[in-house]
């Protein structure tokens, strides 16, 4: 079975500072990887995804993530955050083959950007 661990439940950071939100997964088979963002009182929206190819993936709003197969990680980074990045971020995986393709989500990391 697959699982996703987001190592930090809350990350406070000052505006214009860099940030890294950590995500590790476990799976015995190859996976697809995703980061979603949830702003207050809204649904989730896709930030970026890794399906294959280059391990560095760029997404919306200046975010990027790097797939590291040996460390089974998919950490999310942004070099300079804004107040508007305050939200909850969810890492998710789905199995490449032999399943319904349903996403498995982590518990989320709340990013709080302070002025």
């Amino acid at each position: 079975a697959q699982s996703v661990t987001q190592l930090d439940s809350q990350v406070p950071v000052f505006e214009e500072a860099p940030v890294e939100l950590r995500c590790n997964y476990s799976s015995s088979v190859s996976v697809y990887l995703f980061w979603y963002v949830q702003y207050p009182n809204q649904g989730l929206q896709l930030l970026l995804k890794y399906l294959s190819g280059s391990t560095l993936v760029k997404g919306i709003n200046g975010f990027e993530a790097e797939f590291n197969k040996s460390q089974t990680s998919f950490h999310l980074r942004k070099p300079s955050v804004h107040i508007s990045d305050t939200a909850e971020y969810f890492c998710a995986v789905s199995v490449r083959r032999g399943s319904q393709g349903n996403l498995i989500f982590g518990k989320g990391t709340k990013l709080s950007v302070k002025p």
Partner: protein
Amino acid sequence: EADIYQTPRYLVIGTGKKITLECSQTMGHDKMYWYQQDPGMELHLIHYSYGVNSTEKGDLSSESTVSRIRTEHFPLTLESARPSHTSQYLCASSRDGRGTGELFFGEGSRLTVL
């Protein structure tokens, strides 16, 4: 902007009442989902559908039921609500049923059962 809508956004009801959470999408997606979201917890898949007349239970056992009579509509029903059903319910749809594609989420229905 995603075209998936959930109603009601907020609902407070008493124990034992029957409730239906509505979800509609205008994107023509075949696959639709219901997730349950509680603070500090993973989103748990409770139901999904591959298309009309197809419904499956997800990873988390739920006393709710769903139906898919039309492609665009995927309502969730609780026959007799209990305080343990208090949660946020998120509806989503995807064009791709193989897990490679993007899920489009509604804004959620926050249910409180007294």
